[in-house]
Structure formats: structure tokens, C-alpha cells
């Protein structure tokens, strides 16, 4: 491809599971060539996580893996072997960006830390993603998504609107916090690339997933600085928004954060008399009697379907939205009109709809994405065609467990 509207960038990804692979995929989405390195034999951890096609656990049909790795080339390489390290260095010598998510001391142990790689390729941007960063007292701590979410301060505030402290705080949806780390890394990487191409140099970027999530949560966390009290999961029963259940059992969120929002909602409800009387006729009164207000809103909403409430309230220009399941989201006319879902044909998983890109660029046609690679699918292309290893040596490397 020589399409000038695509990003000219060579990326090496040494990552597993969600955060690092999401970061690299964000670049692949715009045409970057991403070579993903997986451990020979086992591959990316995501291959062992569901959902699996037809609930049949096959490392080539993990929905998590397929979604996060489409658009990439895949090779296998063990960087814990001397031969693997030598090959890795050759790959990095020719790359613009390396994204890695190994535990902080592992790259150094393998002789592949930033100073070593910088010596080979001074303009390399090396982006290291880890739960707690490359240094500091927790840098070698273990953390899965659950621990990440809670260590960032984001989990402690969920579920919002709890009535008391009896039940445990909960994590956010799916692996969303891992994606936060990946997106944060992608933002920093693109800033570094811009600086490099404007005459700067390469550099090392240390991304802490914990700090990335804290930064996202700053608008809540700052409440402690204001009052000396930590915001918690019961603190949100106030006049900002209200979740109501509709006739069809589905939920809708109504926004009550300002007089302007209330006015639209009030009209959508048919301007009921109680809304013109104390205490509901002012923002302060509604706030003070929030519980009662919520009951009235629920009573109104229970007469309509979620879709009806959504359309009624939006008609009067107030914000609101239904809480969609995956199925409802897939069936939304908005999603269809925007062609957000894309079809990708994969040699094992077949033709499936994937969540696509949330942004539309006027000067870049939406590219049909290459399916996620099979384990080691592009070994020959990368090792033989690019690095000029012979097919015979490929066999030897494979037998030695290097690839």
C-alpha cells in the first residue's frame, strides 16, 4: 500500500491481553504496519479468554483476541532465548515504534531495555505499558483488571447511587480499564511521533495504567481536595441524573443537571402540574426532594418503552439515553446508519461483525481491516522475506523453540 492518506509507521508489538494490543490496534486502524510478537506455542493470553465462537474454546476464535488484533501481522518469537533476542533487535532496528507490556525488569534481563535498543535505533519510540509504571514501590506488583480498576480509585465509587455501604464496591465493565491504559499509551505515542517528525529524537514512554485511570477520574477524585472527604458509591444520589425503568423492563437515564435539562424533560412528560409547584419548580427544591422526584419520574417512565422515553425527551432537546444491551446496541438504527459495525472475514472464525472505529475522518477512507493473525501466521513473510532468513533456518529456529 502506498496510499499517502494512511499513516506511515512501522510498529513492533510485544504485548498480551488487552491494554498493549488495543494501543497497537489503534495505530493499525490508520494504516500503521504492526508486527505482533507472541510467545511460541501459547501465544497471547487473550487467546485463552472468551467469548469463543460457538462457546468452543479455540485459540483462534477468542472474541477478545480477534477484536484487539485485527489489522496486524503476527509472528512467534521467544525473547528469552539468545537467538530470539538477536532477531528482536533486527526487527526493532527497522521499526519506528515498539510497544511492550512486559513486567518492568524483564526487558532489561533480556538485554532489550531502552538504552540497549536506543543504541541500535536512536529514533525509536519505545512505549512501555505496565500496571504501576516502570519504577516506584509497586512497580513489580501483580495486577489483573480487577485490581487495576480498584487501585485507580475508580472502583471505590461504583456502583454509584448505592443506598449504603453494605455491599462491596465494584469494577467497571468488561476490561475497560485495560483499554484506558492502551488509549493513554496511544495518545502519548502519537505525541512523541509528532515531535520526532518535527526534528526531535526517539524516546522512552513509561505508561502507568493506574495513573492513566486516576487521570480520567480526576473530576471525582478532586472532591477530596475540596472537602477532605473521599467521594464514595453512596455520594451520587443527588440531582444530576436519574435512571428509570420503563414499561418494557429496559432502563433509561434522564439528565437533571440544570434547569435547562429539566425544562425539556418537564415538557416531555406533558408539563404535569406537580412540576410547576413547590418543591419541584426549582433546581434547589428538586435537589432537596430528589428521592420523591425520582419516584415521580419512574412512575411516568413506566408507562412507555425505553425507546419511547428516549425519543420523547430528546424531542424536547434534553439529554437522555437507553441503557443498551449488546443486542440492542447492534440493532440501533443509529449504529446501522453510521456503519459503526464492520465485517471482517477470518480464516477460522469466519465472517463476523466487529465494533469499528468511533471516529470518521473526512480525508481517510475507512479501511477494510485485515483479520487478526493466526498464531505465527506471518513468520515466513517476516523472517524470510524481510529479515532474509532461509526457509531451512526457519525450521531450525522453530525446532529450537525460538519461533
Amino acid at each position, binding site marked *: 500500500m502506498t496510499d499517502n492518506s494512511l*499513516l506511515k509507521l512501522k510498529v513492533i508489538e510485544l504485548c498480551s491481553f488487552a491494554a498493549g494490543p488495543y494501543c497497537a490496534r489503534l495505530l493499525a486502524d490508520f494504516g500503521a504496519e504492526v508486527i505482533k510478537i507472541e510467545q511460541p506455542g501459547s501465544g497471547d493470553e487473550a487467546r485463552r479468554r472468551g*467469548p*469463543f465462537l460457538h462457546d468452543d474454546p479455540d485459540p483462534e*476464535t477468542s472474541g477478545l483476541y480477534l*477484536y*484487539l488484533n485485527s489489522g496486524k501481522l503476527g509472528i512467534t518469537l521467544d525473547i528469552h532465548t539468545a537467538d530470539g533476542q538477536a532477531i528482536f533487535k533486527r526487527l526493532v532496528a527497522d521499526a519506528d515504534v515498539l510497544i511492550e507490556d512486559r513486567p518492568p525488569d524483564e526487558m532489561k534481563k533480556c538485554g532489550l531495555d531502552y538504552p540497549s535498543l536506543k543504541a541500535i535505533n536512536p529514533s525509536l519510540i519505545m512505549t512501555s505499558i505496565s500496571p504501576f509504571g516502570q519504577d*516506584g514501590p509497586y512497580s513489580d506488583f*501483580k495486577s*489483573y483488571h*480487577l*485490581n487495576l480498576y480498584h*487501585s485507580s480509585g475508580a472502583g*471505590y465509587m*461504583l456502583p454509584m447511587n448505592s443506598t449504603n455501604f453494605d455491599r*462491596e*464496591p465494584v469494577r*467497571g*465493565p*468488561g476490561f475497560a480499564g485495560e*483499554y484506558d491504559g492502551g*488509549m493513554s499509551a496511544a495518545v*502519548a505515542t502519537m*505525541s512523541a511521533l*509528532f515531535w520526532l*517528525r518535527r526534528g*526531535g529524537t*526517539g*524516546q522512552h514512554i513509561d505508561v502507568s495504567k493506574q*495513573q492513566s485511570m486516576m487521570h480520567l*477520574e*480526576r*473530576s471525582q477524585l478532586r472532591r477530596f481536595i475540596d472537602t477532605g472527604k*473521599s467521594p464514595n458509591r453512596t455520594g*451520587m444520589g443527588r440531582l*444530576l441524573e436519574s*435512571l428509570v425503568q420503563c414499561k418494557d423492563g429496559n*432502563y433509561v*437515564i434522564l*439528565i437533571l443537571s*440544570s434547569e435547562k435539562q429539566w425544562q425539556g424533560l418537564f415538557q416531555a412528560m406533558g408539563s404535569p402540574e406537580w412540576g410547576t409547584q413547590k418543591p419541584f419548580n426549582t*433546581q434547589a427544591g428538586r435537589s*432537596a426532594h430528589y428521592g420523591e422526584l425520582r419516584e415521580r419520574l419512574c412512575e411516568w417512565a413506566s408507562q412507555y418503552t425505553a425507546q419511547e422515553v428516549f425519543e420523547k425527551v*430528546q424531542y424536547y432537546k*434534553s*439529554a437522555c439515553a437507553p441503557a443498551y*444491551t*449488546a*443486542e440492542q*446496541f447492534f440493532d440501533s438504527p*443509529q449504529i446501522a446508519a*453510521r456503519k459503526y459495525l464492520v465485517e471482517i472475514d477470518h480464516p477460522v472464525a469466519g465472517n*463476523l461483525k466487529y*465494533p469499528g*472505529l468511533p*471516529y*470518521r*475522518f*473526512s*480525508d*481517510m477512507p475507512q479501511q477494510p481491516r485485515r483479520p487478526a493473525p493466526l498464531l505465527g501466521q506471518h513468520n515466513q513473510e517476516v523472517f524470510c522475506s524481510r529479515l532474509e532468513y532461509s526457509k531451512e533456518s526457519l525450521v531450525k529456529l522453530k525446532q529450537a523453540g525460538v519461533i
Partner: protein
Amino acid sequence: MNQSALKGIRVVDFGHVLAGPYGSMLLAEFGAEVIKIETRKRPDEQRVQHGAGASSDYESSSNFFEINLNKLSVSLDLSTAKGSELARRLVSVSDIVLENMRPGVMDKLGLGYKDLVKVKPDIIMLSLSGYGGTGPYSRYTAYAPCFSCFGGQAHLTGYADAEPNTLTSSCDSRAGTAGAFAILMALNLREQTGKGQYIDLSSSEQLNAQVGDQMMDYSMNHRSPSRDGNHDAIMAPHNCYRCKGNDRWISIAVANDEEWEGLAKAMGSPDWTKEPVFSTAYGRWQNQTRLDQLIQEWTINFGHYALMERLQKHGVAAMPSFKAKDLFSDPHIVARGGVIEIEHPVLGTRKTIAPPWKMSETQPEITRAAPLLGEHNSYVFQDLLGLSQQELDQLIEEKIVY
């Protein structure tokens, strides 16, 4: 030091509330000059709105402070012809425009992409909206809880036996971060092509993309996954456990037998850990309700920090469910420079969360507090746009600069 990745890049920020301003603040953290356009006539909600009403004090909102660091501010009434013209002149000497106004408002103000590309052919413009700029809901409005609902995140958050949860305002920040990424991508593409572009970002789609793997279950198996507290599809134990203290919790996640043995050892290997039902990953997952109770009977005796240290030493992934209070003084966060102090003329010196990246050549830094409304009128209108003092005074008199 003081090399900034985006030095020399100017951003005209029509963002308001949270998602837009958060996105432009990230660009400001990387050193872009971000000029926020505001007006007293319709101040940014974040300066004045509270749950119980609107404040008339524009300068003491800590929430505004948090998401407008490093920016400049001009006060300009865009609903006037002269105000709109000045905004276009500012765009003509800028690289990036970011907006999250109600859909259609920018066009009405004469500040749509088609207007701006005339004054700056290679402008990069991002419109950030709830549901995207096209499609049947393009005119619908949204705040963060709407994105998390529509995008499918709310349905996946909360207890299995309770209602969906819309998460916090961080959903705005997530949309804003995706906006910053898209802008940076367009900026890098402009280096290649010399061309700018228009970017239409749907916040709901971004939130959906961040649970894309969950959506694949529907795509592959026609099944809509649902919320399940802290639980995991295969791992157990995988929950928050109450500790000693006031609403103190530790999150513990065990993926394999090795980690399970580490946990058992950390607990002093009580007899129940040797029960055969707990000896396999699947057994632990099937019996996790009982397992959770037994673990909590142990954790309740210890403080959250002590448990973290002890369990991590045994190779178990365990982190407290940190409160804001913990994070602002946590030894690790402090050692990483994750908390900084910034001086604001009205709010005083405040602690705030630092940019989350350590970059060896272009370290992002907070160099100024959030701006006062119109604080940089003189710099922008006189130094950048070349207006005389007399012209500026006239505009102030006419309440165009207002």
C-alpha cells in the same frame, strides 16, 4: 528539559462541560497552546453549575480547574457577527479546532468545518458528540451517563441482581481522550500529506469500543453479556473483600493454582483451603460464593495496606479499593510524581493529579492553572490578531469581548 511534544501547535477550544475540555487539556499537557473560547453571556457549565443550581462566581469551581489546566482563555460572544469573525481569524492562525457544542450549533455560528476550512485550508477540526454527527440521532444530546448507557457500558456495570450503573464522569474523559488521540493522529497525517481534515467522533461509540470484546459475544453467539459485580468469567476468587477499618476493601484476583497456593499460604494455610473443591480453578469458580465468605472472614482482620503487602509478597494480585484520600498521599503515587501542587489565584494552592506519562524527552508538565474567564484577551486579540488597544476596548464596550 522543557521540550514539549506539541510546542508551536495552537488549538482553538470550543469545548465545554467535560469531554471536550478534557481532550484539549491532554493536548495542553503535551505543550500545545490551547485557547479556550468562553463568554460571560453563557459561561461553561463547569464554571457555574452545581447539583442544586447555578453559581454567579465563575472563578472558584474546582471541577473547572481540574480539566482546564495549562489553557488560555478569551471571552468572546460567538453569537454576534463580530465575535464569530474574530473566532474565524483566530482559527486562521491555528492548527486545531475542537468542539463539543450541541449538534448544529457550530454551523449556525458560522464556525462549521466548511466555514473554517476557508480561512485555514489545512485546519484539523474535531467534533465530539454523544451519538456522532450523522444518522437519525445526530441531533440528540447527551451527557456522560448517556454515552455509557447507549454505548453498552452501563448494562455491564453493577451487581448481577441490581440495576445497570452509568459509571462516573470519567466516561466524559474517555471520550475526550479518544478525541485527543484522533487529533494527534490527524496531526501526524498532516505532516505526511499537508492536508487537514474533519473528524466526527461519537462518544457512545468510543465507550462501546472499550467493551468491544464483550460485544463479540453477541456477534459470535447471539448472547448479550450482563453485569456481574466484580466477578470474572473464569477466575475465582475475584472480588473485593472487606478489611479492617471504615469501608475498607481489598481486591483479590487469582488466575491459576500457583496464585491460589500463594493466597492459601498468605492466609496461614487454614484447613478449608485444602478442601478438594478448591484445588482446581474450575472448582474454585463453581464454589466462589463460599470461597468469598471464607476469604473475607480472614481479610476482615487486617488493614488494606497490610493485606496488599502480604499478598503481593506471596505472588497474589491484590490491591486495595483505594479512596481518593489514599491516592493523594499513597507512597507509590507520590514517588512517581503522580500528585503535584498548582497555584490558582482564587482557589489557592491545590493538589492535583499529574499527567500520567513519564516521557524521557518531552515530559508533559502542568505550567499554569486553569485560566480566569478572559484572562488572555490581550495576548490573543492584540498579540496574535493584531488588534489595537482602542479596537479591543471598543469590542469590550460592545460586549463582544465579554
